[in-house]
């Protein structure tokens, strides 16, 4: 049985379990307790739950203050607001003040597809990546999201986590892995490296199957949940091995994982790259699947892009 579960639910459930024993864990939200699936804290751990109301800047400041008193605050809000509305507080109160605050962006990317650009978080990784000392994690399935929650409770320092709204199919089964700053090789291959992040990893795996079946291309598939710090060792190794890198991400072409990888490889081991992403534009309205399909991020379209890319950059 591999049910499709939203990452945010799995993450919050795990955090709730951990918070029962670790009273220093405290969750904050900005009138988003249900979206973040942390309403359970309000019923059972009311001393570890604060709803700040619709006041994102205040939420971050309060979390920073709590962290300075030894608490482990996790601030949950829609990623679109978390990555924009309170960015000065994140810069000063969290990053510059070296506060141990975990920033949990829910319904990220184009999860709120039909709601429009106000509710899209498609440049959040770009924004967060520019802060020194920030760790950025996008789990690819519910099992990994649980493991991320577990690791973050033990980790000291600011972290931004982005998760989508809808249920996602499992990427990990018995081979579940997550270490901050480490990417996971999911499928071996030597023709091309395809790197997924967050919800695109599953589509990359499916695209890999299509490439093998339809074109006899052996793609290696990598799940890269941590954008920062980047797993440079693995990138270097795989770029050397396959010589061609495709990144698939639910993010604007500006400043996401693709950019991060290009910044590293272009200076250390220049490698032909293709970044399949959302455009530098207001994304079209629609369900996640519709929007992914429109921008070529579904398995069939990823595989076609890979074939085209490989034909242009032959070994």
């Amino acid at each position, binding site marked *: 049985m591999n049910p499709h579960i939203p990452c945010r639910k799995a993450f919050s459930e795990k955090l709730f379990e951990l918070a029962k024993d670790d009273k220093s864990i405290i969750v904050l939200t900005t009138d988003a307790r249900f979206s973040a699936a942390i309403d359970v804290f309000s019923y059972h751990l009311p*001393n570890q739950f*604060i709803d*700040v*109301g619709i*006041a994102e*800047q*205040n939420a*971050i*400041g*309060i*979390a*920073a*203050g*709590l*962290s*300075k*008193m*030894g*608490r482990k*605050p996790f601030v949950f809000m829609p990623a679109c607001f978390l990555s924009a509305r309170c960015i*000065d*507080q994140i*810069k*000063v*109160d969290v990053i*510059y*003040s*070296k*506060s141990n605050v975990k920033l949990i962006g829910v319904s990220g990317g184009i999860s709120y597809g039909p709601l429009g650009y106000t509710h899209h978080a498609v440049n959040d990784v770009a924004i967060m990546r520019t802060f020194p000392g920030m760790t950025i994690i996008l789990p690819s399935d519910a099992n990994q999201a649980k493991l991320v929650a577990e690791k973050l409770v033990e980790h000291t320092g600011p972290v931004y986590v982005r998760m989508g709204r809808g249920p996602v199919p499992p990427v990990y089964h018995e081979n579940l892995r997550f270490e901050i700053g480490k990417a996971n090789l999911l499928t071996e291959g030597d023709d091309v490296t395809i790197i997924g992040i967050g919800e695109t990893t599953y589509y990359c795996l499916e695209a890999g199957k299509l490439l093998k079946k339809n074109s006899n291309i052996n793609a290696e598939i990598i799940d890269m949940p941590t954008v920062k710090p980047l797993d440079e060792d693995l990138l270097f190794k795989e770029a050397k091995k396959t010589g061609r890198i495709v990144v698939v991400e639910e993010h604007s072409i500006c400043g996401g994982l693709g950019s991060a990888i290009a910044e590293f490889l272009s200076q250390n081991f220049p490698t032909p790259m293709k970044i399949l992403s959302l455009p530098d534009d207001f994304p079209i309205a629609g369900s996640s699947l519709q929007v992914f399909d429109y921008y070529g991020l579904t398995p069939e379209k990823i595989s076609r892009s890979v074939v085209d890319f490989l034909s242009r950059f032959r070994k």
Partner: protein
Amino acid sequence: MDIKYLVRKSISIRMKVVEIIYKSRMGHIGGSLSETDILVALFYAVMKPDDKFILSKGHSVEAYYVILADKGLIPWEELEKYCHFGSRLIGHPSVDIPGIDVATGSLGHGLSIACGMALALKLDKKDNKVYVLMGDGELQEGSVWEAAMFASTHKLDNLVAIVDRNRLQIGGDTESIVKLEPLADRWASFGWEVKEMNGHDIEEIVNTLNSFTFNSKPHIAIARTIKGKGVSFIENNYRWHHGELDEEKYQKAVEELKRHLEAIG
């Protein structure tokens, strides 16, 4: 409470403030002189060990540095390096300085952080207090009022805010830019206990701050102050918000402060 000692302390701090601003050729002299008596009251009479303090008006950092040096948290001679290349004593507080919990300088942040600290103290059932000093111009930031609503909702009666109400911001009179009045009524309507005080009468500051009790309301003291207090040609002139002192003006300022000190005896 030895008022004479505190007043003398306050004037000597002003002298050092003027000196480091003169030597670095930069700084926020108006606000630092405006807040000095409040900081002296807090650091030498009101605050208890483990109480917390946030200088939300982070630009007025010079008086704060001098006090931290006087308390032994910064080597006294390091004050000479204020705003020098590579110095940790930069123009706004940072966590690289012992005794400073959070960086400030972007206005409107301190009260939220103080709310978080006050809440943690409540949850830990500790009776320490959190003090936060804000500028009056700073109150134009909307985030201040987010925090104000939060503090009264959560009955943070261990939180004491102080406003350095010198009525001037960079561009001039606060009331001609964006009105803050009726300031006391506004805070009261947000559920705060409000008191007003003369921000240059150290005894009155101490008594006012000590009069706040655990009565289920957050507290705010609006301190009537004079920007640039203690140096007559700087006083009440918004152009001195971050004015530079040349040799002549520096000597003039020092002489005036010396006269104040002599007058106390």
